[in-house]
């Protein structure tokens, strides 16, 4: 079922792109690349690894492993409005509704055999305890070997060394399963690709900061988190370049919906995954999400001569891995750089890691005079959505900012 789903998207978008070979079509290319990854995962032609969100996908792709974080599947099921079935299956098996629906949905897919069986599993202790616990369930269910990358929260020399050594060990673990040693050359290429993608990302974010911003409410939706799956590849570079070019073109042509930017907003953590017209609603209200918290470059360039240490530093630098104080500091910087008027925190139900810091985040942004709307919504499970309440809250918030 999932293979066909991705295949259909790939066919549909390829056809559209063929009709417009000179167009930039950034978002289409991005969806195409992600769907191709999905297709690859479900065709099982290569070695497959299910991973935690902060896993080093560049390193894994250099080792010929098709890898993805499990929450991606939860998000995809939700975006296609099929999560409800899998959530119910997981709940029937005893996975509590108090848990995060990204994880519950994907667990339902595992139980229903709707996931490709991995060759091995790489868990990451960051961003969240629940995510790691779920991939342990994967390993238990599939009876596959399991590797954990422990990502410390304190950014110290010892912590970096510890994680770098674990990454080295992970490459041995992967090689044992793929029967292929790590090629230093391939890793160097992957890291160079990553660096090129990073430079382009910075340019994208610089362009997005422009006032009025050339982005629309959907343009960079969950971009930072998902593009990480591709950044070590040429494809990743192509996509980042397309996004940059599209923004540059919009600015040049003045296509920035300036009239709809009375209010500039920051979205905290992930977006709502199921079809819910919040973007259109914000459009109508003249508000625009100009920045997402996770669309941010927090790392230094990768050093191909010192690959493990630089990947380790990158993993620890991600806001999720650090304490809330550092996360807030980064948000404050974004708020100032993007000159936002307010922020929306969806407070995804069941997320102890991100939502758990709700009060501290509100206070931290209030300290720099940025009001925050806490939506209290499940970003994946739409079954209990109180649409009217959400609409009222968003409208009232925008009215307040206006």
């Amino acid at each position, binding site marked *: 079922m999932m293979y066909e789903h991705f295949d259909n998207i790939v066919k549909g978008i390829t056809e559209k792109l063929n009709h417009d070979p000179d167009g930039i079509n950034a978002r289409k290319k991005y969806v195409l690349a992600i769907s191709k990854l999905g297709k690859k995962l479900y065709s099982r032609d290569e070695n497959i690894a299910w991973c935690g969100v902060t896993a080093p996908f560049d390193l894994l792709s250099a080792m010929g492993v098709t890898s993805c974080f499990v929450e991606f599947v939860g998000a995809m099921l939700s975006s296609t409005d099929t999560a409800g079935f899998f959530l119910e299956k997981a709940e029937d*098996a*005893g*996975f*509590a509704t*108090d*848990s*995060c629906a990204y*994880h519950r949905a994907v667990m339902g897919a595992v139980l229903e055999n709707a996931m490709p069986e991995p060759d091995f599993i790489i*868990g990451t*202790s960051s961003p*969240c*305890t*629940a995510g*790691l*616990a*779920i991939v*342990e*369930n994967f*390993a*238990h269910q599939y009876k596959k*070997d*399991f*590797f*954990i990358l*422990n990502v*410390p*929260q*304190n950014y110290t020399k*010892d*912590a970096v060394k*510890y994680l770098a*050594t*674990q990454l080295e*060990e992970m490459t041995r673990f992967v090689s044992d399963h793929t029967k292929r040693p790590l090629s230093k050359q391939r890793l160097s290429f992957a890291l160079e690709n990553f660096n090129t993608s990073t430079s382009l990302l910075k340019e994208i974010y610089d362009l997005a900061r422009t006032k009025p911003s050339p982005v629309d409410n959907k343009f960079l939706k969950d971009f930072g988190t998902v593009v990480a799956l591709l950044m070590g590849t040429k494809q990743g570079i192509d996509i980042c370049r397309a996004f940059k070019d599209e923004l540059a073109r919009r600015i040049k042509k003045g296509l920035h919906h300036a009239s709809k930017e009375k209010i500039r907003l920051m979205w905290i953590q992930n977006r709502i995954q199921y079809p819910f017209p919040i973007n259109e609603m914000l459009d109508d209200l003249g508000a625009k999400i100009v920045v997402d918290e996770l669309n941010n470059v927090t790392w230094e360039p990768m050093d191909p001569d010192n690959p493990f240490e630089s990947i380790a530093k990158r993993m620890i630098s991600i806001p999720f891995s650090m*304490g*809330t*104080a550092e996360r807030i500091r980064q948000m404050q910087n974004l708020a100032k750089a993007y000159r936002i008027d307010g922020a929306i925190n969806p*407070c995804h*139900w*069941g997320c*102890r*890691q991100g*939502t*758990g*810091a*709700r*009060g*501290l985040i509100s*206070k931290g942004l209030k300290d720099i005079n940025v009001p925050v709307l806490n939506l209290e919504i499940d970003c994946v499970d739409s079954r209990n959505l109180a649409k009217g309440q959400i609409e009222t809250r968003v409208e009232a918030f925008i009215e307040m900012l206006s």
Partner: protein
Amino acid sequence: MNKKIGFTCAYTPVPLIEAAGFSPFRVFPESKAPDLSGNLLHDNLCPHVKKVLDRAIAGDLPDLEGMVFINSCDSMRRLSDAWHEARPDDKIIFLDLPSGINSLSLDFLSKEYKRLTETLFKWNNKTCSSKEMTARVNNRIDTWNLLAALVKKSSGKMSKAYTKGHASLIQEIINTAATKSVDKALLMAQNKIDPQGDARQGAAPVFLFGNLLFDPKVYDLFEEWNINVTGNDFCTSSRFITPVDKNACDNIFKSIAASYLNNTSCARTMDTSKPGSIAMNIVQQAKETNAKGVIGFTLKFCDPYLARIPMIRKALQKESIPFLMLEGDCTMGCMGQQQTRIEAFAEMLEV
């Protein structure tokens, strides 16, 4: 009297606190402090973390020289974040705790425990050589191990012949070690760890597991509701009194790390070579203690357990061991709601 060091997680080795000349003070989530933690964090966090934070916000704490936090789960991380906000003047140390058990993790954790010890010595203005520090740590571990051995021996008797008041007495001793001193707890244990009286007949023998069940009176309720506790696995009981095998590794901090990582089987820690081993561990403990049933008692919103309950349920089912899963805030306040479930479970086991 020694100054106190607060802590909240069973992965905090109490002997290290005492070696630095402090008394341990585990901040239990027992307080009448108003429910304000949701303002700093979120209402859907585990009640342990929320109540402990409520105590901090309300100042419902003794004088503390500092706090030790452990990166054991997301909720604990957020507690540490919020503590900075609630009590900005407190000295705080935050230790990273690996999730997977292997030699690298062990090495890393041993450095974290050493950092904790050095920090605590510094907080107490104790300047001493590394040799002297190690000697003090060793000394406190000896006492700790004596206590751990007594607790283990006495707990072992519960599964053979349960005497009224046994489980609550052991809990009192453990709580004394957590909130007063290991010496005091040892004295209690040496004097009265095995309660007098005949073995209780006719009650259902049940093994308990979960995260936090610290009030000794809870165990009296279990007795009242016709349950004999054959053994338990909580971060306020067996997982807290972790004996340290001093000869496990070549230095004392590594030995401590090895003991805590291997013995303290909280759901947040996993053995990567045996994914899902928590379920088998519980089955094994239930069998070893001759339990006829198992009750899981966990905090609401505890992610590590929420994700493991299905596999635990399945493993127990496979062995035909009846299982009752309860959720609450693990204080006396929530026990009333559980009465019918627990009594019905006991009735079910009696059939």
